[in-house]
């Protein structure tokens, strides 16, 4: 069974349809990139996968032993967060909250896991730095570490490279690829950056109020819609 299975899913917002007739699935180990223009319904779909918003029709299953609260999520940053007084360690540790249950305090294994993820992302030396003093790229890595702490299988990344310069963007993409390959985590990523998406992803889901394309990256590059969308970006 697939990790995520979307069947005839439609989302409405205050009565009007924002995203209709989605049919796709995500298998273990895949790297799916969701692309589309502003207002195409990308964020809505992410909310649906995370169970923050229920579809008005159809259903999204999670299978293969994946529980919804074990999805590691990298949200878009809010303004309030940028100057939040918290240490990197405190932020990453909060990713272990779902293993806490009704217990009030974290266990030693939770803390060890935090150190492991910090090492994996190469930010162990930032451990006791303040989150608000980090650069945008470093902050994204911290939030990625938190997402890794929360997840067993699946990572959902919402526009992870927004606001990063090209070098940091490349580094972050490499890191995500490494997590996909070496840590065997399944990745679902929303992106504006079509080139980055096509370069790294294994599958593409193109949205525009409905599902315009779903399939392997190689097929997307050959398809009419794929060529048009990638072409438009290159003209910019």
């Amino acid at each position, binding site marked *: 069974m697939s990790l995520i299975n979307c069947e005839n899913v439609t989302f409405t917002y205050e009565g009007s349809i924002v995203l209709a007739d989605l049919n796709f699935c995500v298998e273990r180990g895949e790297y799916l990139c969701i692309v589309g223009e502003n207002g195409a319904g990308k964020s809505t779909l992410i909310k649906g996968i*995370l*169970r*923050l918003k229920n579809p008005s029709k159809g259903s999204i299953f999670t299978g293969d032993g994946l529980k*919804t*609260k*074990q*999805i*590691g*999520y990298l*949200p878009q940053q*809010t303004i*309030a*967060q940028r100057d*939040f*007084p*918290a*240490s990197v360690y*405190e*932020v990453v*540790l*909060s*990713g272990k*909250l*779902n293993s*806490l249950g009704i217990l*009030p*305090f*974290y266990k030693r294994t939770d803390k060890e896991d935090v150190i492991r993820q910090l090492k994996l992302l190469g930010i162990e030396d930032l451990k*006791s730095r*303040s989150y*608000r*003093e980090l650069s945008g790229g470093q902050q994204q890595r911290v939030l990625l570490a*938190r997402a890794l702490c*929360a997840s067993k299988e699946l990572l*959902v990344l919402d526009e992870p490279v927004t606001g990063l310069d090209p070098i940091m963007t490349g580094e972050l993409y490499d890191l995500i690829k490494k997590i996909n390959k070496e840590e065997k985590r399944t990745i679902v990523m929303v992106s504006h950056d079509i080139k980055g998406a096509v370069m790294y992803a294994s599958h593409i889901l193109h949205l525009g109020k409905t599902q315009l394309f779903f399939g392997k990256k190689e097929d997307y590059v050959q398809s009419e819609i794929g060529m048009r969308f990638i072409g438009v970006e290159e003209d910019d």
Partner: protein
Amino acid sequence: MINTFQQMLSYPFLVNALVVGILVSLCASLLGVSLVLKRYSMIGDGLSHVGFAALAVAYAMNVAPLTVAIPVCVIAAFLLLRMNENSKLKGDAATALLCSGALAVGVMTISLTTGMNTDVCNYMFGSILSMSKFDVQISIGLSIVVLILYVLFYNKIFAVTFDETFAKATGTHSDFYNMLIALLTAVTVVLGMRMMGALLISSLIIFPALSAMRICKHFRSVIICAAILSVVCFVVGIYFSYMHSTPTGASIVIADIIMFLLFAMVEKIKER
């Protein structure tokens, strides 16, 4: 100075005020950090005005003030959060509405029953003389409950304060913890209001958190620093108020302001 303190402690009403004040200051500063960071600073203000109305009604009906004010404020906190989340009234507008609306109800009740007198002034600007023995007991009990709940839920409150969406996505009931924060705030506001006054209580919530954030960079150190600052400012304020017979609430707030300015200055110097 030690002599003066010994002299102060010989008055039972001052001992009560000190014990209750220190506990309430602790509660207020802990909750204040979350409220300021979540951009909910105005909630304390809104709740204190509701508390004022509740006190006025309780006074008119001749019942123990806290037994009316606490449930009313808890309900108001609940409503405020609801309005923040899903209504056409935006958060700040809802708070402003509640503030002036409740104040009007309070003033109306007073003028129809007892008329404006020193009691009313005490509600507005606070007085340490206004607490009965029952009030003291209930204040001590409730503030200890608030402190214990805060420590037990510390990790969850941090997660919900830092990133509500993430917490929700990984299966934490963010709404429940938001409600818990609002509820604890409501209780704290009512308990502190008698001493600080309805118009001044929200500074007890906001100032220590803001001052601590000037200098501290970790969440835990902000919390600890805010708690210490809050208690220090309270004791300094009450000492000054005793020495120079100034209003207690206002003296404490002035101490908070001075502390904030000091911390802001240190921050500026550090940045250079």
